[in-house]
């Protein structure tokens, strides 16, 4: 597919040298003149009233420059979606880890010592940890509301009861997807720098540089223009790094001391007060005809929000209805409840509710396939949405590579023969997923992308965008898109760090939207820059701009290549001609997606929908319960891979996280306290724990994507836990509906089976 000269090629990351050499300055590496070091005093109680805070001893410790509590803030309730946050606890703490006070000192040792000198008098209150318990009347109330229910989601289409009656097979199960931690290698970190006019610059690891300014400005009682966000290199996020009080406490300290304050979560605190995945109870009932036609789905989701709402209610909503646009379920009855609990606030983690629900759906479909004697692969293809279809919720499937993903995965994995072998303790499992590339329902003001492309006198191109590169390679993708659009080579392109004073307003990197939205935004800006430079070249070449082409760094007349000028020359001469003004192209892209109807949930929320099929081969040691993964194939419909190598890396990383979730990862809590807030006992896969993961790129082309591309980030993980669970079922005939599937559970399952 050498249609394009840059797009579609596995070019190395444009900032690879900086990351490989250690030159890249990550947030936790930053050092500014006069910088102080901050720490947060966190609640040891899951639920307690604060009677009194005495900071006097801490303030007197030499080297301490400020100690702050909520009294040092405007005490304005705020939050990403609800107004149930306070920068620091006002009257109550609602989870172990809740922010109570902040300290800024001349070094980290002093800051930590100061924490131990702050005296807080707590009055412990009854606490509740499980959402099923927290929902019940009489449960301890966590916020000033009549009940702990944050929000409810209801949806019904057609007649599920009739559908189940007409079904030949109805499968019902309760699933539990546990709370897991994103485990990015760089803990949450920030440097907040004040200026003399009271403007705060937040150097933060954030996926939402522009969006985060709004709740932050509100919380600090500042006009929006006094909040600037700059995004340095940062070490991974996977959904976790959005709004966090870590940044705001640092801001309050910066205001108080008038000095920059750096705050980095010690790893233990990052576990305690990060934003782990929303744990969910999923009651799922699916009916099907023996020919394989799915007739109806009834589902109830109960998710724990934790002590305050980050994005849990949107995540529960997503779980409730996203797979309705993967398969034709025909009749639906859906209910979702998000509940406060006295546990760490839960939030986005790769998959955003769709990961949890995909585990349930793909496990149930596996059982249905068995009940009707149908190949699970065929069941998926039969019911999957195809290109051009519109789903029951009005989602317009511009391209669907689902069937091709299934076929290619089946072929590459040896699916047929391995299923046929029926070797006890060795099995193969399949799971599919859909996802979005951007989600209008999650964004509020708009969903779109924008870019600025600036061509310098030297012919170098600087690209501004408003999204966030957390390591997934977005900068390189944007650079490739711009290089392709402009007809120049990748090494001419540089992508500027996001600085909300200069960069376009970007919704941010979540909902797998970066490539489509950010990509289309910078593509539009590049097209504008191209138009301008061609106009200048046309004058210089005495030609019609419509007849000009840019290729390999030269602008020339189509058909008369001898009439040409180097790109750099046109840029230079053009700049002189225009009094020094560089060529600046701006552009934006806004698809015609809509916020769904609040009652019916109908509405096309995304411009592009990725699909995938993953197949896992596993061996179970029936004496120890351990699972050895032998092979893994992951076929992903990515529209078109802008950078195949980067896309493969995303797939392998997502699968690895899904495998960890399926087999070993679990935040163990007791009375709201995380018992394993470290990498010793929160076990993520190491280099010996993963099978070879073979990524297969399926490229049907997506009309709405830049050069036909769709997203990859979250679909990379979604199918993995079910693929593993289905492989285990195929191996030993035991169905596991709770994650993680540990060796102890496997042994217990084997015993019960006997």
């Amino acid at each position: 597919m050498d249609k394009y000269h840059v797009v579609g090629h596995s070019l190395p990351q444009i900032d690879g040298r900086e990351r490989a050499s250690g030159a890249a300055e990550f947030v936790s590496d930053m050092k500014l003149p006069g910088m102080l070091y901050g720490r947060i005093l966190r609640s040891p109680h899951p639920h307690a009233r604060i009677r009194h805070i005495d900071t006097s001893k801490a303030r007197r410790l030499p080297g301490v420059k400020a100690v702050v509590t909520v009294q040092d803030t405007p005490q304005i309730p705020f939050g990403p979606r609800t107004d149930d946050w306070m920068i620091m606890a006002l009257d109550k703490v609602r989870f172990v880890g809740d922010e109570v006070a902040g300290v800024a000192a001349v070094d980290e040792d002093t800051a930590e010592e100061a924490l131990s000198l702050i005296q807080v008098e707590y009055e412990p209150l009854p606490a509740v940890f499980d959402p099923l318990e927290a929902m019940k009347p009489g449960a301890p109330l966590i916020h000033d509301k009549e009940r702990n229910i944050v929000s409810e989601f209801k949806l019904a289409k057609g007649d599920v009861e009739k559908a189940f009656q007409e079904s030949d097979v109805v499968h019902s199960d309760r699933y539990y997807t546990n709370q897991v931690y994103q485990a990015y290698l760089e803990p949450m970190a920030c440097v907040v720098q004040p200026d003399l006019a009271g403007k705060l610059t937040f150097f933060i690891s954030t996926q939402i540089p522009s969006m985060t300014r709004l709740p932050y400005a509100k919380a600090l009682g500042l006009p929006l223009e006094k909040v600037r966000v700059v995004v340095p290199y940062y070490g991974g996020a996977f959904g976790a790094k959005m709004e966090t009080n870590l940044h705001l406490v640092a801001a309050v300290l910066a205001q108080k001391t008038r000095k920059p304050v750096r705050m980095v979560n010690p790893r233990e605190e990052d576990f305690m007060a990060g934003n782990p995945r929303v744990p969910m109870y999923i009651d799922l009932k699916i009916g099907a005809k023996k020919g394989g036609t799915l007739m109806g789905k009834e589902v109830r989701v109960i998710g724990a929000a934790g002590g305050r709402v980050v994005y849990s209610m949107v995540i529960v909503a997503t779980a409730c209805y996203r797979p309705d646009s993967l398969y034709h379920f025909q009749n639906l009855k859906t209910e979702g409840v998000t509940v406060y609990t006295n546990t760490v606030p839960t939030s986005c983690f790769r998959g955003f509710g769709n990961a949890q629900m995909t585990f349930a759906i793909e496990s149930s479909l596996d059982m249905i396939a068995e009940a009707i004697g149908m190949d699970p692969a065929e069941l998926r293809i039969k019911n999957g949405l195809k290109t051009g279809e519109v789903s029951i919720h009005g989602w317009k499937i511009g391209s669907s590579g689902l069937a091709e993903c299934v076929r290619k995965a089946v072929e590459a994995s040896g699916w047929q023969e391995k299923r046929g072998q029926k070797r006890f303790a060795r099995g193969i499992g399949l799971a599919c997923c859909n996802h979005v590339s951007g989600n209008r329902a999650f964004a509020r003001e708009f969903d779109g992308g924008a870019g600025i492309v600036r061509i310098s006198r030297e012919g170098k191109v600087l690209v501004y965008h408003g999204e966030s590169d957390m390591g997934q390679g977005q900068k390189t993708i944007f650079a490739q898109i711009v290089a392709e659009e402009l007809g120049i080579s990748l090494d001419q392109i540089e992508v500027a760090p996001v600085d909300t004073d200069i960069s376009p307003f970007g919704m941010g990197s979540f909902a797998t939207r970066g490539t489509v939205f950010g990509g289309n935004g910078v593509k539009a800006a590049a097209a504008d820059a191209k138009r301008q430079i061609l106009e200048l070249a046309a004058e210089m070449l005495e030609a019609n701009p419509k007849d000009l082409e840019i290729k390999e760094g030269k602008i020339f007349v189509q058909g008369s290549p001898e009439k040409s000028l180097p790109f750099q020359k046109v840029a230079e001469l053009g700049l002189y001609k225009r009094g020094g003004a560089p060529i600046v192209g701006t552009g934006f892209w806004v698809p015609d997606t809509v916020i769904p109807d609040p009652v019916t949930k109908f509405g096309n929320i995304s411009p592009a929908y990725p699909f995938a099929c993953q197949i896992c081969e596993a061996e179970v040691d029936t004496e120890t319960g351990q699972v050895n993964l032998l092979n893994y194939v992951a076929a992903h419909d990515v529209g078109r891979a802008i950078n195949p190598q980067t896309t493969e890396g995303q797939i392998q990383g997502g699968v690895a996280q899904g495998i960890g979730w399926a087999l070993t990862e679990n935040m163990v809590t007791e009375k709201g306290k995380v018992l394993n807030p470290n990498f010793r006992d929160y076990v993520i896969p190491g280099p010996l724990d993963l099978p070879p993961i073979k990524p297969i790129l399926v490229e049907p082309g997506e009309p709405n994507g830049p050069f036909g591309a769709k997203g990859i980030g979250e679909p990379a993980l979604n199918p993995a836990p079910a693929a593993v669970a289905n492989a285990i079922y195929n191996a030993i005939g035991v169905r596991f509906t709770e994650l993680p599937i540990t060796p102890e559970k496997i042994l217990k399952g084997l015993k019960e089976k006997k």
Partner: protein
Amino acid sequence: MRMRKFEFFSPASLDGALELLEQYGDEAKLIAGGTDLLVQMKSKLIAPKQVINLLGVPELSGLGQNGKGLRVGALTKHAALENSPLLRKGWGILAAAAHKVGSPQIRNLGTVGGNVGNASPAADTALALLALEASVVLISRRGERRIPLESFFVGPGVTVLKKDEILKEILLPEVPANSVAAYLKLGRRKSLDLALASTAVLLTLNPQTGVCERARVALGAVSPTPLRARETEKLLIGKTLDEKVIQEAGKVAQGECQPISDIRASAEYRKEMIKVLVGRAIQKAMGIPIPPTGI
């Protein structure tokens, strides 16, 4: 996460170290590789006022033959044990166990003296050393004493080492001819993990009859201390180690341990796993292929 401040000493001799220990007694801690001590100090589990660095004390280092036996200086790193050709002369399970400690980085820092002195019931090298019938030499200004490793451990993290003593070296007797051995460790993943259950077995088999003439079996992570499974050993001696005997040995080993439940594993699982591990370790020692999963 930050350690409290302390005074630091780097004695250049064993005498110097002992003198400091005597002087500072209760408040002082010895540091070698630091892989256990620093973790404890960072979590504020302990906050010693003085830390005495043993890395520069020559009398504590060295790995070499000691008559027909082996002398392992307390400062010997796991990496050195892992890679030592000397250990192949019968003490191979010590190298195998050292290889399972932590990660390459940890093995380049951590010392066997520290691993043994830390007295975790799951300590990898301790198991191999027990099976190899090691003894430890403890030294103070009052003199030297040599005790079997089995008597060194008292409870989790507790040994008979006195406040003014340093673990100087570990002595291993010669391993009888015709001995085979294996070390198996079960974790939650295949590397960089603490043992959920572990075992070291050393068997001496009659070259003509194949009968087991001598058996040493040590169990880890299933008891307050690393444990010699004496009943299991008795069962094996004088027998041909067929499938039936091996299974029986596993069951007896189960009966000898008293594991606890913690966030890593339940007591029931650990008990069940010891049965499996002992059986498989005996098979592995005898060259019978065993499943590769997670061990």
